[in-house]
């Protein structure tokens, strides 16, 4: 059993290395570095080609990374590699994981292109990265805060320059929080899955109807 598991992990790792090799072949200098750590293959790519590379990973038939596990960002105290946006990908059928990193300059404009048109699930993940780190995702249709409330104006909390307790005094934070008036920013429709039914994929709607959880139209 364990041997079977290990064997599978080794195959997946080899497949990830293969993907990294294919990426380097396809995109040349845009693939900056590949390395392996803790059973993860990581590929650093140039910011200006990142979208094309991610699209290729999703759409190329031999790659088929159809699941975007996470989008996040990391800020280091290292001037060499100060800030990166991280995409964690998975090919569900092939059971291969790949981590793609985009290096950004924290002093410059923190901006990358959205991948919501490649993986729809990126929408909230990118909103979270915007909220916490202040990375702008160009082309994102609805780039609002998602964890902090809409009127929060102290900045982006996970940046290194952000003090742990926030910029303002506790009483001022309390005042602003009590003043936030959530209803002004989130509609009931937004919070209700029933309203989102028509936007669900065809297949998911069919399953809801077939399982009796939703009346047919």
């Amino acid at each position, binding site marked *: 059993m364990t041997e079977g598991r290990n064997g599978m992990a080794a195959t997946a790792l080899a497949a990830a290395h293969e993907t990294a090799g294919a990426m380097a072949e396809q995109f040349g200098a845009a693939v900056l570095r590949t390395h392996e750590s803790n059973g993860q293959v990581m590929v650093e790519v140039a910011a200006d080609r990142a979208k094309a590379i991610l699209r290729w990973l999703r759409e190329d038939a031999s790659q088929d990374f159809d699941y975007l596990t996470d989008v996040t960002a990391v800020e280091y105290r290292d001037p060499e590699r100060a800030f990166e946006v991280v995409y964690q990908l998975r090919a569900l059928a092939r059971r291969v994981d790949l981590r793609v990193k985009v290096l950004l300059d924290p002093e410059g404009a923190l901006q990358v292109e959205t991948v919501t048109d490649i993986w729809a699930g990126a929408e909230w993940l990118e909103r979270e990265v915007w909220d916490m780190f202040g990375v702008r995702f160009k082309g994102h249709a609805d780039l609002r805060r998602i964890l*902090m409330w809409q009127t929060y104006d102290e900045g982006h*909390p996970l940046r290194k320059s*952000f003090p742990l307790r926030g910029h303002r*005094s506790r009483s001022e934070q309390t005042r602003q929080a*009590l003043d*936030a008036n959530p209803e002004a920013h989130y509609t009931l429709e937004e919070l209700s899955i029933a309203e989102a039914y028509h936007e669900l994929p065809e297949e998911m709607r069919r399953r809801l109807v077939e399982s009796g959880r939703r009346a047919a139209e």
Partner: protein
Amino acid sequence: MGLTPPPGPGGEHDLFETVSPNWVTTRLDFLANWARSNSLWPMPFGTACCAIEFMATAASRYDISRFGMERMSFSPRQADVLICAGRLPFKLAPVIRRIWDQMPQPKWAISMGACASTGGIFDTYAMVQGIDTIIPVDVYVPGCPPRPEGLLYGVMLLQKKIRGESISDPSLRIEHLVQPDGLFRRPEIIDEISEPFGNSVSQTRSS
């Protein structure tokens, strides 16, 4: 000590505002407090890990219904005691405040756990440093999380407090509203009770 209370300056309607404690009011107090303290309907405001312990308190082993609290009141309008079980982020501050305002008098609040009472380990940008900066609190239950016995002890303390209440003291039923300046307490008090303590004093404010 007569059976009829002396009329107050505002006439009959001021009955409860003006009477001093006498035989009638103390008997009424006893009856009302007995009824209230033994049928506290909790409004569970479970936000984090403490809520798990709160659920354990409500389940059969610890059985909070022994204290007349078996009916969790998920509508604040039918609740008597708000139990904040877990840390309260600033984003939820207007929500708990609204729920508190919606609860009819008489009402009480229990702050369950270190986080609800003081912010606990979360001395960060996101966390209210004690729900008593948002709403008035009657009983603080310490612990991270408090054991069910701890919460039950807090409930018993609250019952004791209720049994000591009197209708001749109208100040108990004053609504503590958010003031026009948008705060529930004076800003310097909020700043003072939110000061870091314990391990977090060694963290500086500037990053």
